[in-house]
């Protein structure tokens, strides 16, 4: 069969289409973005009528997916790991409501923080909410697990988490597809109280979730994705989770591994498998990407005094991404050193694109703030976070989506005046609006810069929920229209921008200054597409 060259994220997108979803919901976030983009661009998905537009944030995405599941249809919701913090309220409670149509939550974790603020491990969340997890070790498994995961979710009655990490998300391999499953008919839950989490009902449903735990464990035990390959050498055993299984295979092809190997790619961890390992091995090494979730569980489960090593024991680093070399070291194998990097090599940090509007905004901001002491600008998540680096060095915070406005408000409340927030258009509609409402209700003395490039740029130029709505949202929240200023960040307007800053910094209250100029990458993409349509007007473009 012809294989498809898929990134891990693309395999997941295809798996969801072939698994019979009626809709995907998501907010862009590296390394999860391309799952939804793949579905948006898929001709088959368009033919099948799968809805796939971006949501305003992960919480709205999660709730909409839960609504689709309520209506009986299969659905997937995708986000990066920190996005699950935003969706956590809906996520944890959805384990208690359970599902109707099959529902998969795909979370992409980012160990080593290639494009993130932390490297939290989503398996903790799954354990917290007490739902099953599928953790593919390669692209083919990613496809198969998602395609089959909706049926698993329907069988067990809860959402199923598919957890991947950056490396699998952004690595290609040949993937074989299976037949396309048909979507579900519209059908409401048989129990009309299922989704009503009033205390009396919630208590009953929570007991039900607790009782189901043994079913989840049974499903993991009989899963074709979990296995134990026994060896006659009892001195050592290995538990390899998710992608760590590949790094083990890089060191020992599994047919050729001298030790007993437990492959763990479906959770909860089956206790019976652990007791087999306990019986058979005198020492166990746990290989897992992220936090020592399994290592801790294994230590707690073993009754015999068996040495357990992994990220906690120091056999592997406690933080950062795994690789075949780190696993080799943990296995006591010799690791090549490789040549040294010559001393003259310097780092090449990411930077704002030449011609980007954020640059002009920061130049004006720096000049306007020149007469004040440093440390007054709170920022947010997006390309403009690069304003923390030289040559701008303009901002002093980047914590979570929307925190610029609320932190500026708190600092201003404490007496730091002026205090300034710098936030992008999409981040503003993701999580900034409620903070702005707090500032308006409190009459806080802050200046909010909305650096509006009319797209979600850091993740590759997705449609922004804020498009064409920024000023009306600010007005609706209650910002005085006289203090909603709109400027074009271009060099030729530099003086005007500085002047506007000066005026609003002098105003005691909430000011919003919108700097609006299309992202230059998005503009280039738009022009390329326009040219394509001009060159070939008959073809349909998504």
């Amino acid at each position, binding site marked *: 069969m012809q294989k498809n060259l898929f990134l891990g994220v693309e395999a997941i997108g295809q798996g969801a289409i072939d698994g019979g979803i009626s809709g995907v919901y998501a907010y862009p976030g590296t390394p999860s973005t391309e799952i939804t983009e793949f579905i948006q661009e898929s001709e088959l998905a368009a033919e099948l009528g799968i809805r796939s537009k971006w949501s305003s944030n992960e919480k709205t995405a999660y709730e909409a997916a839960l609504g689709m599941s309520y209506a009986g249809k299969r659905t997937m919701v995708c986000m990066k790991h920190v996005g699950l913090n935003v969706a956590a309220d809906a996520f944890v409670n959805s384990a208690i409501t359970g599902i109707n149509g099959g529902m998969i939550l795909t979370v992409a974790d980012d160990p080593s923080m290639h494009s993130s603020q932390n490297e939290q491990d989503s398996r903790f969340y799954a354990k917290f909410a007490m739902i099953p997890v599928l953790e593919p070790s390669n692209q083919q498994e990613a496809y198969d697990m998602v395609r089959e995961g909706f049926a698993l979710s329907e069988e067990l009655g809860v959402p199923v988490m598919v957890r991947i990490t950056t490396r699998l998300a952004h690595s290609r391999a040949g993937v074989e597809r299976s037949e396309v499953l048909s979507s579900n008919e519209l059908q409401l839950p048989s129990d009309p109280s299922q989704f009503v989490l009033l205390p009396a009902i919630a208590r009953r449903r929570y007991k039900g979730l607790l009782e189901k735990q043994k079913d989840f464990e049974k499903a993991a035990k009989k899963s074709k994705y979990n296995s134990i390959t026994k060896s006659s050498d009892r001195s050592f055993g290995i538990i390899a989770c998710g992608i760590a299984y590949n790094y083990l295979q890089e060191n020992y092809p599994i047919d050729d591994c001298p030790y007993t190997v437990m492959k763990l790619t479906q959770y909860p961890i089956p206790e019976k498998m652990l007791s087999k390992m306990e019986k058979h091995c005198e020492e166990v090494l746990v290989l897992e990407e992220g936090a020592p979730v399994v290592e801790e569980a294994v230590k707690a489960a073993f009754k015999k005094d068996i040495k357990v090593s992994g990220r906690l024991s120091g056999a592997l680093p406690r933080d950062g991404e795994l690789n075949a070399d780190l696993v080799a070291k943990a296995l006591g194998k010799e690791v090549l050193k490789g040549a040294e990097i010559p001393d003259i090599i310097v780092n090449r940090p*990411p930077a704002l694109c030449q011609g980007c509007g954020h640059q002009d905004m920061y130049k004006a901001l720096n000049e306007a703030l020149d007469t004040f002491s440093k440390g007054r600008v709170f920022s947010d998540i997006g390309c403009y976070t690069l304003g923390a680096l030289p040559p701008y060095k303009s901002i002093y915070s980047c914590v979570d989506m929307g925190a610029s406005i609320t932190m500026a408000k708190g600092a201003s409340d404490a007496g730091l005046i002026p205090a300034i927030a710098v936030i992008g258009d999409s981040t503003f509609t993701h999580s900034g609006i409620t903070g702005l409402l707090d500032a308006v209700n409190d009459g806080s003395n802050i200046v909010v810069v909305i650096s509006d490039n009319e797209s979600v740029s850091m993740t590759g130029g997705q449609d922004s929920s804020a498009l064409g709505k920024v000023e009306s949202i600010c007005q609706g929240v209650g910002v005085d229209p006289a203090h909603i200023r709109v400027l074009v960040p271009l060099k030729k307007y530099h003086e005007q921008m500085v002047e506007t800053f000066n005026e609003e910094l002098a105003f005691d209250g909430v000011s919003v200054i919108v700097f609006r100029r299309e992202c230059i990458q998005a503009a280039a993409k738009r022009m390329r597409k326009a040219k394509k349509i001009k060159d070939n007007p008959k073809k349909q473009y998504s």
Partner: protein
Amino acid sequence: MKTDIVLAGVGGQGILSIASILGEAALRDNLYLKQAETHGMSQRGGAVVSHVRISDDAVASDLIPVGTADIILSVEPMEALRYLPFLKEDGYIVTNTTPFKNIPNYPNEEEILAELKKQPRCIAIDADAIASEIGNRRASNMVMLGAATPFIQITPEKIEAGIQRVFSKKGEDVVNLNLEAFRAGRNFALANK
């Protein structure tokens, strides 16, 4: 048979198109392949790297272990040196010599070239000059891809078919330009191996 390639460059220089041409060609040749890419923040002018692993046997790790890469293929000279720890002892460096200077402290060009000269097996090409001569500097990645072919166990014909597929939408002129660039790179490497 196994070829492990570290593909290096700067965000926006088009190393991902080299990677996808190689990937498609390998898959059509019924070879196994894994190809890890850099997406996200680093694409904004940062250093980007792609590990391409091609084999007639299943490939396990998406990342190449240190000290085992057969080739470093770089579209920028400093980036070629950044990944030296990955190169095996008798591995080849194939690199463009035109620097991409988007940082204020870019090292002295002569020193970079001197470091490359110190490497026992290095093919340094002014791919931008070759591509300009052919007609478009932007085809310099195809010059580099061509230059790497003597060290990759996929036939140049199959890679050319990949180039045709990738550029076919842009018309025959673009395809021919890229094929010409690819062949010029290959000839340079064969003559200077």
